[in-house]
């Protein structure tokens, strides 16, 4: 399939069109400086969506990502309060590890106990939020309690883009490499595309799903640190409801909710689309409530579009086989 006809190209065209429309009302929006800051703002959504992408590819869903982000972020903030001189690199490592561990809980429940992913992650979502409350006693951790390098790191600007933005880019490139060039990445597509065939091919479906949750969790943990540091505040309800935005980014990006179809580029563009809508509506003086309606419409359009393109190629193999006996 050539790029011009692909889902990604259409989405890219939609984004360009959207930017053009915004520019007619508010030309400053499309200055490089502003676009860079919109991109930076959208980075957490993009990172979470890339994790969610892997999970959805394997026919699962991870509703606990935002709660994982909040819990890991809170723990990072508390560690920072306790040990302000801890190097940021080590904090990021802790965030990744803890996020991965929380993701592994989801993955194990799905793999070993065969509980439906939506139930598992709905449960852990609530549990994670509860744990934050227990840890923090419901208290906020504010900017003045955090050390300067903890909050400053994601906001440093290199070549006009924040460190957070560069981290997002690095994650996207790593994920692209993982999905395109490793057996693990290939197995996510295979397991989601046809679990029965995957089993016959020697793949372990449950293990692939487990690893998808671990990846999703690790990225949620990373986003947790970035979020807390960027906004310099940690509390129980941080990023509340954000998981739905993450799923929306995936769906707009062309990840099939039925599994097995999707791309890193599509997911990145899906996240960017939502990020632009979210940042642009206030400046062009449209009520933020419209943002929800526009996001919702974008999801429906994307799903309709995916369903249509899926139908044309979803041929039944060996149709006559069922008649043979």
């Amino acid at each position, binding site marked *: *399939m050539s790029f011009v006809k692909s889902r990604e190209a259409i989405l890219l065209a939609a984004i360009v069109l959207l930017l053009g429309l915004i520019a007619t009302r508010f030309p400053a929006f499309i200055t490089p400086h502003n676009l860079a800051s919109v991109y930076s703002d959208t980075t957490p959504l993009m990172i979470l969506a890339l994790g969610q992408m892997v999970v959805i590819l394997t026919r699962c869903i991870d509703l606990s990502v935002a709660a994982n982000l909040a819990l890991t972020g809170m723990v990072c903030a508390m560690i920072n309060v306790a040990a302000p001189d801890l190097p940021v690199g080590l904090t990021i490592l802790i965030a990744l590890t803890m996020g991965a561990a929380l993701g592994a809980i989801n993955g194990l429940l799905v793999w070993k106990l065969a509980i439906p992913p939506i139930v598992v992650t709905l449960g852990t979502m609530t549990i994670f939020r509860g744990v934050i409350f227990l840890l923090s006693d419901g208290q906020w951790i504010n900017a003045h309690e955090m050390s300067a390098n903890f909050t400053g790191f994601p906001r440093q600007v290199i070549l006009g883009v924040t460190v957070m933005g560069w981290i997002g880019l690095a994650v996207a490139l790593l994920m692209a*490499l993982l999905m*395109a*060039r*490793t*057996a693990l990445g*290939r197995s996510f*597509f*295979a397991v989601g*595309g*046809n679990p*029965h*065939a*995957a*089993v*016959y*091919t*020697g*793949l*372990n479906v449950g293990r692939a799903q487990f690893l998808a949750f671990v990846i999703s969790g690790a990225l949620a943990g990373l986003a947790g640190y970035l979020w807390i540091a960027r906004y310099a505040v940690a509390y129980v309800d941080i990023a509340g409801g954000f998981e739905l935005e993450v799923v929306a980014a995936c769906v707009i990006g062309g990840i*099939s909710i039925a599994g*097995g*179809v999707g791309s890193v580029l599509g997911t990145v563009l899906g996240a960017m689309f939502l990020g632009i809508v979210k940042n642009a509506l206030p400046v062009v003086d449209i009520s933020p409530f419209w943002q929800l309606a526009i996001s919702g419409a974008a999801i429906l359009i994307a799903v309709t579009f995916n369903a249509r393109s899926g139908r044309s*190629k*979803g*041929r*039944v*193999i*060996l*149709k*006559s*086989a*069922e*008649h*043979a*006996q």
Partner: protein
Amino acid sequence: MRDAGRRVTAARSYPPQIKTGPIMGTGQGPVAAQGAVLALDRIIKTFPGVTALDQVQLELHAGEVTSLIGENGAGKSTVVKILTGIYQPDGGQILLDGQPVSFPTAQAASGAGVTAIHQETVLFEELTVAENIFIGHAPRTRFGLIDTAEMRRRAGQILSSIGAEIDPGVKLKDLGIASRHLVAIGRALSVEARVVIMDEPTAALSQKEIEELYELVETLKAQGKAILFISHKFDEIFRISDRYTVFRDGQFVGAGRIDEISESDLVKMMVGRSVDQIFPKREAQVGEEVLKVVGYSHPTEFEDINFTLRRGEILGFYGLVGAGRSEFMQSLIGITKPSKGAVKLEDHVTIIRSPAEAIEAGIVYVPEDRGKQGAILDLPIFQNVTLPSLGETSNRGFIRMAEEFALTRQYTERLDLRAASLDTTVGSLSGGNQQKVVIAKWLATRPKVIILDEPTKGIDIGSKAAVHEFMSELAAEGLSVIMVSSEIPEILGMSDRVIVMREGRIAAELEGEDLTPETLVRHAAGIGVKGEAA
């Protein structure tokens, strides 16, 4: 009335070898006799590439049981689907009381009094017995609501008419298998049934339940219903039928009264066929032992399977549907775990615990349901082919696409796969080409043993020949092939040796002169070979 079927007994003088077309009367007008409640007259049904039914005849008489007999693929299920309005015939007519009718929908068929008890009946666990029986046509009160009391009363009547003591108010999930079966029968009888179709009704029943079913059949006969009975079991065919009709390869072969034919003549009618089918079987050099299976058993599916497989050999596995062949193969490649048994590969004894281990050991399985179990339709051709061989196309953990394409090309060229590019998604290919992708995938792992489950099921004659040719080539190159097939010509034409399975056990191992259609069917159905089974 009872003699009405006589006119369709032309096939009684049966020389199987000379058969070239339908034996039954062509061009003699409607064959359906007076007195038949329901008759099929020269019904044709085609599917893309396959003629499922070619001018078949069938008559069902009031108060009599007619058995429809034929191998897998003979067209029995297609006939049931035509009689129940699920398929529309492409030619010929359905006659009800001698009048042409059509059943455009399942409702039309049941409205005309034709009802079926299917192989796998769909019932609703969470609904009551009465609701299951009357689903879709429940009695209504004058406000249009379901009249539960009336429904239960009538369900109770129906159940007691078939001698079943089941409370219509209990939920289905609280019933055992046998009672559920009676509920399914009750549902079939809840419409004013004149014709009852029973498609392999005893397949899932114990001996005691089967006896009860026979009694029920007698009851239905006494009520004057015409019964179409489909079974593979000869003992029950002879026990309960009044008449038989034999199909073979979608064609009518013969019909008559059951007490006027012997078991062996019936077998001959089932399997006899023209000898013009040529199989490209090459005389392969059968070499040393490659695989030995010892005492493979499973709690429910199969028991004590022993055999050896040699290099360059094609070993056929024949049996009726449900004999446990596919279940055994799936266990052999580690999808399900055997309760007992081991395999010996070349020199070491082992147990295969997962498909990955089977691939590692050089045993690959091409499943029967290639759409569901074979290809990943959303992935491009090359990614499908290399999926089990990614270790080979990777360098330090990273897949090298150039090597993927090279490996894929090697096998797709050999299989003559036609696609615009190897980057095309498999879902956009034709069925035959999708199948080639699946076979290329397995050959790319360089297996020692390839298991092909029903390799030609549902594909047209031309493709069949290509598959057979290819199978022969593989064996000639020293690959060992296990071919699971329910088609007798294929089994006879391709196999060096055949293992016949029956009810989860090996019933016979046949080669050379012992390998005839009759011996296959006898061992598979368990006719006159009791005690002699291996």
